[in-house]
């Protein structure tokens, strides 16, 4: 009876053991293939963009002023007004000038009269030569004085020396002006300058004539300009060099003082491969690498990063067209088999 029990027990034990062996064989079966996302490496010979914030300036600004001192009577234009060459802009009080002219005319008549009287005498030789010269000179002088007085009436008027836009206006009727004081700024805005401050480390990369993209937020315009002038003296405070970009201003939408974005392509090239920084990994020794997909398996490939641009890193150590693992690194190791589920 006991033997039967013992036998039964042994049978049970054996059955148990067999069961376990079966479990193990099931476990052996699956080789691991790991799903990954990949991306193809693009070559990048990059000029990196430099962007600046610029300020629109007029190309030329002519300060206009009266020739004579005086009191302003009339101002005929306003700030921002376009004027053609020769347009009257403002006048000074000309009563004094006119009076001076009248006075001069009177003197001239007097001299003319003297001249007219003396002339027959000269002709018949009764007048001594010295006296004649005196009369003749007197007339000439009076004529010149009269002409001068006449012209100085004109000086009370300020005309536009060329076409342009009135920038600043510093006079109002009634104001007394001196010839040195600027009455108006006449701006030339057929083309404008965009002034950008360029840090010293970048200024060397810029060349005259280089193209620049200018985006003006106020008018939502995007224009192309050229570098016209590169300053030679740095701003003492910000250590930047003023660089002027000439931009055509058709339609005169761009107004001096507007703030704009300027993007310049530099000559400094980063040659390398463009790769999302997500693909980069770091090994235990502190070296960066990526997983290169070769057939069905991945190989670790060391890379170095030159710089970061936009959303990507510029890397060295890869070739164009290389397929690189973008995500799924955590489950990979060198030589692992992969299944690419998503190519970007």
């Amino acid at each position, binding site marked *: 009876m006991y033997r039967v029990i013992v036998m039964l027990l042994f049978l*049970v034990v054996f059955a148990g053991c067999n069961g376990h062996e079966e479990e193990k064989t099931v476990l052996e079966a699956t080789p691991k293939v790991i*799903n990954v996302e990949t991306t193809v490496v693009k070559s990048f010979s990059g000029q990196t963009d430099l962007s600046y914030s610029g300020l629109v300036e007029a190309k030329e600004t002519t300060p206009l002023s009266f020739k004579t001192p005086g009191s302003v009577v009339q101002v005929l234009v306003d700030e921002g007004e376009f004027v053609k060459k020769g347009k009257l802009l403002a006048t000074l009080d000309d009563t004094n000038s006119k009076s001076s002219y009248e006075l001069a005319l009177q003197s001239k008549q007097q001299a003319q009269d003297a001249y007219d009287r003396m002339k027959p005498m000269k002709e018949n030789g009764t007048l001594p030569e010295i006296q004649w010269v005196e009369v003749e000179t007197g007339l000439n002088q009076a004529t010149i004085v009269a002409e001068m007085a006449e012209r100085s009436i004109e000086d009370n008027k300020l005309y536009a020396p060329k076409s342009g836009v009135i920038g600043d206006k510093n006079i109002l009727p009634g104001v007394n002006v001196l010839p040195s004081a600027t009455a108006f700024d006449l701006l030339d805005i057929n083309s404008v300058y965009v002034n950008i401050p360029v840090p010293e480390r970048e200024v060397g990369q810029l060349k005259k004539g280089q193209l620049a993209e200018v985006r003006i937020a106020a008018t939502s315009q995007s224009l192309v300009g050229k570098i016209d002038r590169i300053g030679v003296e740095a701003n003492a405070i910000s250590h930047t060099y003023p660089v002027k970009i000439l931009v055509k201003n058709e339609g005169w939408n761009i107004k001096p003082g507007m703030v704009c974005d300027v993007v310049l392509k530099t000559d400094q090239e980063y040659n390398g491969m463009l790769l999302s920084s997500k693909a980069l990994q770091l090994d235990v*020794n502190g070296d960066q690498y990526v997983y290169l997909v070769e057939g069905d398996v991945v190989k670790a490939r060391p890379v170095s990063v030159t710089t970061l641009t936009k959303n990507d890193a510029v890397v060295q150590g890869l070739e164009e067209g290389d397929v690189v693992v973008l995500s799924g690194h955590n489950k990979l190791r060198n030589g692992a088999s992969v299944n690419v589920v998503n190519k970007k």
Partner: protein
Amino acid sequence: MSNNKGFNIVELAMKHKQIAIIITAVLFAFGIFSLMVMPRNEFPEFTIRQGLVVGVYPGATSEEVEEQLTKTVEEFLYGFKEVNREKTYSISKEGTMIVFVEVNNNVKDPDAFWDKIKFGLNQLKAQLPPQVLALIANNDFGDTSALLLTIESKEKNKKQLEKQLEFIEAELRKVTTVSKVKHFGLQNEQITINFDKDKLAHYGVNLTSVLAALQLEGSIYYAGEIDNSELITPIHVPTSFRSEREIKSQIIYADPLGNIIRVRDVAEVSRGFEEPSSYILNNGSSAILVSLEMQGGNNIVQFGEDVELALEKIRNNIPSDVVINKIANMPEAVDHSIQHFLKEFFIAIGAVILVTLLFLPFRVSAVAGITIPLSIFITIGILYILGIELHTVSLAGLIVVLGMVVDNAIVIIDNYVEKLDEGMDRWNAAIQSTTELFVPVFAATLCIIATYLPMPFFLSGQTGDFVSSLPVTISIALIVSLLIATLLVPFMCYYFIKEGVHKGEEEASKFSLLNLLQAGYNKTLDWAFKVSALTIFLGIGSIVLGAFIMSIVPRQLYPKVERNQFAIEIYLQEGATLNQTAFVADSLRAMLSKDERVENVASFIGESSPRFHTTYAPKFPGKNYGQLLVNTQTDDQAIEILAEYEVKYRDAFPNAYVRMKQLDMQSTEAPVELRISGDDLPTLKAMAERVKETMEDHPGVIWVRTDYTNPRQGVRINVDDEQANRLGLTRGAIAASLGAGFSGFPVGTVWEGNYPIPVKVINPEQERDDYDDISNQTVTSPFAATPVALRQVATINNDWSEGQIVRRNGIRTITVRADLERGALAYKILADLKPQINELEEESGAGLTFSYGGEEEAEVENYIPIGKALGVGIVIIFFVLLFEFKTIKHTLLIMTTMPLSILGAALGILLTGYAFGMTASLGVMSLMGIVVRNGIILVDYAEELRHEKNMNVIDAAMAAGKRRMRPIFLTSFAAAMGVVPMIASGSTLWGPLGAVVCFGLIVSMVLTIYVLPVLYSQFFKNATI
């Protein structure tokens, strides 16, 4: 012997039967009442002895956090003797330090300790770099939510929902048993100011001064009060920001010429919801989560009902499109499991009574049977008074003792019947049968209690909490049953059993089953005595076989939790964005929602759910982490889905690992864990990598990761200090400008009634989303003459920092964690891996220390104390027996019954197919106590025969065997039947206990009744009578 005293009491109890009956009746009634009102729980409350110390150090890399913050904090913490150094570990990562502080198990009042820590941390902060923003301790980490509710609406946005939330929370707080109400997943509105950096630059306005101006305007300041001798009136200067319009017209620059610049001239001001760093979805639609905790010591089932009532009221008062769902429902789970267990418990009582009815005459079994409910309910009443909750552990304790409870009565009744047969009168028979047996029954009871008594002294931590109620429950039940057996049973015998059962041979047919067994036994026992050497050899053989089987049965300390709920954890690589996490989470959610077995899916993107199961600790928030909380219709479906989806989806997403997490009684993060400690980071990481690859190569391993995670890629700003300084810029100013531009700078709050709207200055989105924007960021400082672009003073490149640095016990420690195939056993896979890991360890030399965590550590931590407790229990049993039997020979003889139970226990595990775990080892302990009783009863009788009836050794042994077979068989069988419902329920937690006790009892009973008499005869062969 305490015979005299016992005699007196027994007789006294019989004389004053009314007192005994009334006391019993009252206690019984109280027991029934207690059963209804007792606090219920699924498991005893585990004290989570872990708390957090969190430090925030923005801008510091993992290494810097470790060096400058973590080390100092660790030094401070390790100065406290309450801190368990081995289990305290810290995580240093980008800008954050988290120390998981484990408080020693012997600390009685962890709250007081935490107060001390909090105070100390405040002082410590002065020693830390000033950039450390916060250093706080959090010991609520272990709080478990009883209920998780989601609030969602198709029509309302988060702000409108928040209004509803306030009402809902207020109503819920009215439920008296609610302790903490917390909400998660709110999304605030905010006002963003995007300065146009070009305009700022050309207006020549310094952003720093603008920020300062804005900030001042956004705050409340004290302006004094005026006392005009009639009234004292405080002076108020209200904040100017009442709306975004006022922010727009805020003047940020003015000069004497009257030129002014307003915010709107140089910035866009807009209002919207802030970009969340994490959010919660329920079934794919945006939701707010409310977590409810219950005040300890209450009936959680009742709590659930109270909350449900409150919710009904709430539902009537909120707009109909606002839907409230329960996504984690502890009251229901507890109710479910307790109801289930109670059912098993009553079936067990029934089964035991049935066994007695089957084998004993009706009246005898009626008396024995009635003692069961009496003892059990009185015990429950006493447990209630002692404040012990009704949970599966205490119920399991009661089920295990059911058999023993009835034993005491059966043994006494049996003796009484025999006395009647011998012709004694009923009164004296009742008294004598009890007094005679009092000592052996008392000793046997003591033995069982002895096995449990040392437990609280050796077990600590989670297991300690788990088993803490067992010794009390079992001791009380046994003592109560002993009292009933000695004080009430004699009277009941006297009253109900008026005649003996053995009238003569002709009666045999009436009790055929038992008599048949008796006859069979008598015959086989004769054979056993004939081949006594073989019998003993078989006994020894059974021990060896038992030990062998024990060594091959699967082990698992705690089984998984069977609940209609599971979690899915989603891990993305470091630096992954919230959208990437959300994509994976949402794809999974969509697939699960299509499965008709799934009832509800709550998604936590960028964070994890509050702790809803004691041992499932929430993960720290991170944008590369997500969690789904899935509810299925039935418990089994949860397991089905886990198995199905695990294989299908764990690696389906290239950028994520999807981890299926079945709730677990164990708090280890992974079943297999190897900790490598050392100081040199590259060596550590290289070794961890090799260990990881070794583990990955094992077919049973599905996912291996280290807690150092992957290195984190960053952008390094290489500042040209000379340039920067010349322009009045410092690294701090550069960092501050970048921080304000890319992450925003808070400048104040607009209060819209009681709804605060933070105001933040930040770059417009298109100016903070690629690397070029960093170069072009305008940097400025109060000392800088003019703002300049960052690239004027710095170049950028990428750099790397450690994902996180974990230190354990103050030493850098990498933990390599491996998840295993469903159903694989950790210790087996670890056994396969160990040779290779040992090789690696040897290679590494002295620099690195290896130690195992995971289940291995848990086993060591649990089984060794259990072994110790069992050892001490055995020593106590030894002394109890020594006191009773006076000689070492008898004592050892009785104790041979213990090893004889091993085979049964082992067979129980083997045949039922459970894994040997914590509860199985409790079963073994119980078994040791119970089987000793069989030995006592047998040897005690043999001794009596030998000394009082002057039988020779062999006759006495045989007679004792034959005579005592019946009670031994009955008691063992009854006890074994009591636990059958436990096995039948298929519970992986309690099934093993049932299997061990049931099979152990039966097999050991069979072995004992043959081997022990033979051994007795051999032991005392040469003894003089």
